[in-house]
Each structure stands twice: as structure tokens, then as C-alpha cells.
């Protein structure tokens, strides 16, 4: 089983051990356009599924980043504070936050890459 998952809100989740790295999909960055600001959450915050864990602001709009998993914020990608355009350059390589998972079952409701591609086909 792959360790890469996607949400209907166009976030991706890469699971490494008990940690989930979360970013936005390539489709999301292309829809947002030029990203000019990324707001990161506080370290050690406890979050549950559906909570906002950041904001991605582009020239078009500001969008919340919703976490598809519950747990504790253990890493934030501070590079994005000075270089938010990294998300446009390579959305899949640049994670935004990492969450120490409290419930691994959260992952079962997410799409794998194949499902996500299909979802985009229907959505686009």
C-alpha cells in the first residue's frame, strides 16, 4: 500500500512512520495561481480532522488548509514563510505541516493517487 493520500479539498498526505506530512496538490496550486503567503500553525497544537492548520493565500484568494488527520503539530515548513512560491514550483515536494498521528484510522477515508486522479477527472 502506498503511503501517499489525497483529500477532496486537494491536500496530500504522506505518511512516514507515525508522522503525516501535509501539503497541497498540484491541481490546488494551479487553481490558486501565484501563491504569495503561507500562514503556518503553532508547533505542538493539538488538532482534529477538519481543523484549519494554516492558510494559503494567492493573488486570487485565501484558502484554509484543513487537516485530514488528528494529532499534534510536530513540524512546520518555515521555508514557506519567505518563499511561498515553492508551492507553485513543486507542490508535491514542499510539505506545509507535519502531524504526529493520534488515530491512524483517519487515513482509511482518504483517496490514493489513482482515486484522486479519477476524482479530478470528474471534478475538472
Amino acid at each position, binding site marked *: 500500500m502506498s503511503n501517499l493520500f489525497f483529500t477532496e479539498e486537494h491536500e496530500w498526505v504522506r505518511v512516514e512512520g507515525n508522522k503525516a506530512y501535509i501539503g497541497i496538490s498540484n491541481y490546488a496550486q494551479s487553481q490558486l495561481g501565484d501563491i*504569495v503567503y503561507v500562514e503556518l500553525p503553532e508547533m505542538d497544537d493539538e488538532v482534529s480532522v477538519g481543523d484549519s492548520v494554516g492558510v494559503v493565500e494567492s493573488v486570487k484568494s485565501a484558502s484554509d488548509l484543513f487537516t485530514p488527520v488528528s494529532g499534534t503539530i510536530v513540524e512546520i515548513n518555515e521555508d514557506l514563510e519567505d518563499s511561498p512560491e515553492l508551492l507553485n514550483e513543486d507542490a508535491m515536494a514542499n510539505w506545509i505541516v507535519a502531524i504526529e498521528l493520534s488515530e491512524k484510522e483517519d487515513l482509511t477515508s482518504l483517496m490514493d493517487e489513482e482515486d484522486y486522479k479519477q476524482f479530478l477527472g470528474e471534478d475538472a
Partner: protein
Amino acid sequence: MSYDRLIFENSVPGKFAYSLPKLDVPEIDPSSLGTPIREELDLPEVSEGDLIRHYVNISTKNFSIDKGFYPLGSCTMKYNPKINENVARIPGLSKIHPYQPQSTVQGSLALLYELQEYLAEVSGMDTMTLQPAAGAQGELAGLMIIKKYHELRGDHHRTKIILPDSAHGTNPATTAMAGFELVEIPSDEDGSVDIEELKAVIDGNLAGLMLTNPNTLGLFEGHIEEVTQIIHDAGGLIYYDGANMNAIMGRARPGDMGFDVMHFNVHKTFSTPHGGGGPGAGPVGVKAFLREFLPVPLIEKEGENYVLNYDLPNSIGKVKAFYGNYGILVRTFSYISTMGGPGLREASEMAVLNANYLMERLKKTYRLPIDKLCKHEFVLSGIQAAPNVSTLDIAKRLMDFGFHPPTVYFPLIIPEAMMIEPTETESRDTLDRFMDALEAIAKEAVENPELLHNAPYTTPVRRIDEVYAAKALILTYKDMLNEKN
């Protein structure tokens, strides 16, 4: 001298635009007055002629509703009749002071009282306050009233406000500002509230729901009575965002639909100027059972006299000094009085007719994601024959045709959204010319997309570097000098 430059750049030491009489009192040493806040103030030094020409020149570069068609969806950029300005300048209405004895301003209090009555009639609500200084503040006051209602009943756990994703853009901010928890629900395929999704998020913590009807897609909520029923059954209150009242005046009333609290945006519905942050008004109306929570004072009639009633122990308090932005309320009164009931109804009918007239022709060239009878506005989503041309390029190119672009990339639920609201005050000729322009652009998009990509060509400033503008915040002349160095 270029009048286009900043006034600071045209400054010449020693130039001035005033002439004072010779000093006829003894001069004193400023240092004897204590330490100054600053040594000098860096004000531009220009002559009166330089000053006037600078501002008149830059003012002509602005686009305004007095200069051309402004179909900015969601904003209702309708014409502001000049009679409103004349009325607001009548000395008896303009040369008064809020601290004057009430007995000397009975005419003004009568005007405000009658305006409340008019708004109650248009909305179907029982009691109005004219105090909030803008629609957004009206929303906040409305949600504070809902909060106070629940708190007084001991329902401190009711902290959830539901918002459909087609809500007016200010609603999420208001919800957060009022200290509520926001729960967003998706729309169904027709752009209305999805009843199943609504039922799924209802629980004992429900405080209420905010709804814009017609919604931001310009569509009337088909099952509005079902929505209000569900919310009331769950012990919540339902808030009507009056942003789009322009489309239903004289035809349907929020009070009759079951709403408990609402606000008007008088700059949209009643033709007062869009202030650009200047004075506005956002009157709030409530059903009778919420009257006790309204901001004080209420303007009431006692026999033949108009009085200010401060005796509301459960009031949320004042939300604005004195009685709101009086001058704007006078313009609102003027508009309603000149239009009359049938006139307001006709205004709404024309707003809806104009929007549908545009939609029916434009849908042949542009993608129309939700194709059903619209109210006062509708949302397109790119050019059919050129799907890869962005809405941004279309909007920029429209400026070369002399039109203000529609709202773009909003609402967020429609990709490449272009939201068009013609308003009732435009003639058929203007609407036709606007559609001619959009069709010409659609043709250009197929034949020469590069032309669109580099537009606009005829405006004082060409394509703005939006990324740079968003990241490098140069907000003052000093910032600009630093950036240059």
C-alpha cells in the same frame, strides 16, 4: 512638471499655496513650548495650481459608476441618483448636531423613524436599528444579538453558526469576529443549500445559520422555508444577509420567509454611494422577540413626538456613536421616498430582467455552469471555444473596451468564475454594447490569445504585477524612496 507623479515628487522647497497676513503678535521661540513631537513634518510644498491639477488629473484616471458601466458582481454598483445628494445637503438636515436638544431636531428624528418604518415594511421585520455603520457591522450586531439571546436563556453551549459555501463573502469573518465557531456546508447541484448536508451538521450546539438569499450565485434558495424550519426546530436562529435584497424588493420579504435577524446594505439596495471605506450604513431588523437586544437608543414615537429610548437593559450596547451615519441614512430615505413602493419593486424586476437578458445571450459564447433563471446576477466560467484562456485575461481585456470588469474568481465554488451584475439602472443599449465587447473578446481569445494576455493597453497603468504587489508592501512615500534606493 508631470501631474502624474506623486505630490511629494512635485514638491519644491519654498513653494506654497497660502498667503497669511503679516504677523501682528510677538513671535516666541517654539522650544519654550517644550520638546516637539518631531522636528519637521515632511509635507509637499506646491502651489495651489500644482495641487489642483495633480488631484484633478489623477481623479480622471479612476473608474467610477458616473464614468461607465460597472458590472461588478456581488457589489451592486448601481447608479447613485443625484437627488439624494441634493437632499442630503438641505441645511435643515445637514447643519444639525447630535448634541442638539431633541425638541429642536424633531424633523430629523421623524425622518429616521419613518426610514425605520419603510425598512421594516420592505423586509417584513418588526423593529429596526439604523445604527450600524456598514453592512459588515450590521452583520456583527446581528450575530451579537443572536449570541445574547442564547446567553440569556442559559444556552452557553450554542456556539455553532452554519454557513453555506455560497454565502456572502463577509459572513465567515463576521462569524469569527462574533466569537462563534464556523461550520461550512456545501451547496447542492443547483447552487442551493444542500438539505441533507444541513441536517448532518445540526446538533445541540447550534446557535444559528446565516443565509444570503438570493445567494452569491444569484439564485433564489428554493427550499428556504424548509431551511428556516430545520434551524428553528433545532433551537437556532436564522440570519438574513441583505446583500442581495436588490433582487427581491417588493416581491419577497425575509420576515415572511422565517428569518429572525437581518441587515440591509444601503449602498447596494438603496443607491447610496459605495464609500471605499467611507461612511456607510447597515440597518438591522429583528423580529419582535429580539427587540430587547437591539443597540440603544431606539428611535420611537410618543404621541406626536419622536424620542430616543435608552431603556433596554438587555441591549447589546451601542455599536456606533450617536445614531449611525446620518447623512447616508438621509440619502437612503431620499431614494425610498422618490421611488415609492411600486418603484422599488420595479427596480428589483429590472435588475433581474437585465441579468437574465445578459445571461441568455452570453451563455452561447461563455460557459454557464448553473443554467437556470437567475436573480440579479450570474456566474460565468470561461470562454467555450477557448477553455485555456483565463478569466483574468478576459477581465483585463474588457478595460480596453471601456467597461469595468466583472468580479473574478469569486464565488470560490466556480472555477475561473466571472460574476456579472448589471443592476437595474443600465439601458438596453449599454447592455448590448457590453455583450458585443465580451463576444469580441471571446473571438480574440481563439484567434490571438496573446493579445488578451498582455491586456490592458489603453488604461493609465498596464497589467499589474500582482505577485509583487502582494509581497512587496510599499504603502508610503518613504517606503517608495527606500525601494528606489
